[in-house]
Every structure is written in structure tokens, then in C-alpha cells.
């Protein structure tokens, strides 16, 4: 059964890709090892830490808890696609300016979760920020600076 790869077509950050995927490969493994985008990180590999967060068909998911073969026809966005070229997205800018990261392992996940939050609630309360980011863990920064970064991003994007 090791050769039961299936050809799967989907788009990543707007680019169509076609990959031969074994059912046992998680979406995270496919994105990192087959599509060569290493922004999404493997932290816990069981859905707790959020460092593997990507957007599929407009909603964030833990890519470690999904299979690559499920992605036929899906639209995937990763941290690499958030801002064009070398530009920074206002959320990235806000994390940088407010000390919202240290080692950066958790940061792609936090930023994509923030993006998802601000699309649903453009001006979230602190409580809402903490609720919507509960699936992202950071072992370095401390959550206050992350909350402040999200608040800064929200006000930058709504002004």
C-alpha cells in the first residue's frame, strides 16, 4: 500500500498545483515537503498548538489534522500568500512593531488566526481575541504582546 499515491489538484496561494500524495501524508507534510512552503510549522502534530494553521476554502484549520488527499479542488492559503512579494501585511507589521514574536515558530499560525478573526470581527474585544486565538500556543512571547499586536492590526486595518 506504500505506492497508493493519488494525483491531487488544488491551489496554494493562488497557484494551481498537482501533487502525487499518499493517503498517510498530512496536509502539513504536503505543504512543507511537496509544495516546499515551510511557513506552516509542526509543533504538536495533534491539533493543540496551531503552529500548522493554514486557510482552506476560507477558514483556518490545523493542517496536521488533515490529509493531503482530501484537498482535491480546494483553495489553500498559507502565510507565504498573505502579502504580495516582499510587502508586509498590516497584521505582520503590527506583530513586528508590538513585539508579538520572539523565535517566530508560532507566528505564521497566530497571524493566519488573526486574519481569520479580523475577517469575522473587524474590531474584536480583548476577550474575543483571546477566544479566537485559543488554538494557538506561544512558548516565548507571552500573550499580552500578541493581544496588543492584534489590537494594533485591527485599528490599522479599520482606519
Amino acid at each position, binding site marked *: *500500500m506504500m505506492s497508493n499515491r493519488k494525483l491531487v489538484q488544488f491551489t496554494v496561494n493562488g497557484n494551481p498545483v498537482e501533487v502525487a500524495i499518499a493517503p498517510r501524508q498530512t496536509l502539513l507534510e504536503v505543504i512543507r515537503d511537496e509544495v516546499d512552503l515551510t511557513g506552516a510549522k509542526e509543533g504538536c502534530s495533534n491539533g493543540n498548538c496551531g503552529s500548522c494553521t493554514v486557510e482552506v476554502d476560507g*477558514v483556518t484549520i490545523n493542517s496536521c489534522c488533515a490529509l493531503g488527499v*482530501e484537498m482535491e479542488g480546494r483553495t489553500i492559503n498559507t502565510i507565504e500568500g498573505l502579502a504580495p512579494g516582499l510587502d508586509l501585511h498590516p497584521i505582520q507589521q503590527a506583530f513586528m512593531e508590538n513585539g508579538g514574536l520572539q523565535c517566530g515558530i508560532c507566528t505564521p499560525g497566530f497571524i493566519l488566526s488573526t486574519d481569520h478573526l479580523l475577517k469575522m470581527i473587524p474590531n474584536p474585544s480583548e476577550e474575543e481575541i483571546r477566544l479566537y486565538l485559543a488554538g494557538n500556543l506561544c512558548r516565548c512571547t507571552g500573550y499580552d504582546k500578541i493581544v496588543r499586536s492584534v489590537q494594533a492590526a485591527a485599528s490599522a486595518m479599520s482606519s
Partner: protein
Amino acid sequence: MRNFDYVAPTSLAEAVQAFGQAGGRARALAGGTDIIDQIRIGRRTPELLIDTKRVPEMMVLEDDGAGGLRIGAGVPLSRVRDHASVRAAYPALATAAGLVGAIQIQNRATLGGNVGNAAPSGDTIPPLMVLDATVVIAGPRGTREEPVANVFAGPGQLTIQPDECLVEFRVPAPRANTSSYYVRFIPRAEMDIAVVGVGVSMMLNGGGQVEDVSIALASVAPTPVAATAAQDVLRGQTLTRELAREAGERAEEATSPISDVRGSADYRRELTKVLTRRAVAACAGQLGVSLS
């Protein structure tokens, strides 16, 4: 991860055929938030995963034409959580859907998976039980409908046959003057599994007495259980603080808890009393009756 095969049927007939042919060697794949890790750590060893998310019959989320709701087994919990009529008519279910994991989990996880995983702690299960939800089960021998309360055999184990699958949940129309509530205790604010969970659905009559009530408990027995003695205490009575307290005391009779990392059996018995009392009071509060 060990390897397996994968198919994604695009109709219920195809799905039924796939489950039928595979017998016990296949499992359903819905949001994958339980099964993928269970395969990784070797707790489950299916040879085939059958994806339910391209089966239109498992993706319905709509009025049943009689004031009730049909929720496909493969619909993500975020859609259940945000659905206007779930929020209005079945608040216990909306609450529970919004408690499972975090946002990323809710965007993938499903009712089919929460029930299919058959954990005694499944948060959506007490709400489905107290709302009198049924589940449509399909298999090679045909289709049948069972109360959700009847499908649990033990931890991780359903009463349905290995060649059968869950298609959709049916939640009957809410009756007048009825509300529902779900509360769980976890040691943190988010992202943990219930130490105890309590769902209540209650109907009051014109005189303010309890016309009907249903209470179900999570994480206190090998399967989610109904707290029938607590229900009996409340039915026909005028609600008071003392009565809510007594219902809590009697809820304990339904429990047969274990001690584990999340809490001792004694702690779970105590939590059952407290949370049942609070859930009854909160449900009454939603119906305009204050017990404070």
C-alpha cells in the same frame, strides 16, 4: 503514520457501498481531528478511510419542513455554532459546538465525528440527547433512524455495525416555552476535555411548573448518560433554588465515574451535583424564571 487507503464517495449510495464492501476494515473520515491522531498513535488501525465530506446527504444543514433541523454528519461545527436557528432554538447545541477545541478545530470537526468517536466527554452529545435528536444510519441492510442516546456502546464504541455509517442528525422542532443549556467544567478557559458536562432541556407550563425536562451528563460514565432521577425530581414541580439543588443531588445517581488525570471519581460526583444545579437554574433563567 502507518499507511491506509482513501476514498471520497460523492453520493450516499457510493458511500454505503464503500462501507459495505470494507466491512470492519474501514472508518469514516470527517474532520479528522480525532481519527488522524488516533491512527498516528496506533489506537485505531483502519485499512481504508472513507471521506464523508463530499457526500451531499451528509452535508445538509437545513429546516426539516416541520420546524426542526437536519444537520449532516459531515457539517463543520463552526457552521452549527453560527447557524441562526441553532442559536435561537437549540442554545445548548450552539454552545457545545463553540466549546469543542478552538476555532481551527471547529472549522473541521463535525457532529458525526463527535458522536462517532464515542468519547464519554463529547461535548455535543448531551445537547443532542436532551434535544431528543435522532440520527439516520445507513448500511447495506437499509436506512434506519435511532435516538442519539441509543448509539453509544462504551468508550470509543458505537452500537451501529462496522459496515454502517451516520448520515444526518434530526433535531425536532422546539416546543413552546422550552429552552436548553450546556455547561462543562474544565481547569482552563479553553482547549480542554470536559471533566464533567451537563446538558439540560426544559419546558415550563403556563403556571410556571416544569412540564418536561431532560438532563444528560458527559464524562461521568462509560457513555454519555441521562440523569433520570434528577428529571423525576423536577417534573411537575414549581422551580425553586432548593428543587434545583435536589435535582443536582439526584443527578449523581446516574454517574459511575472513573478517576483519571482530569479528576477523581469523587470530584466528578461533586461536579455533577453543582453543574446540574447551575444548568437547571440557567435554563430556567433563559425562560424568564430567576432562581437567585
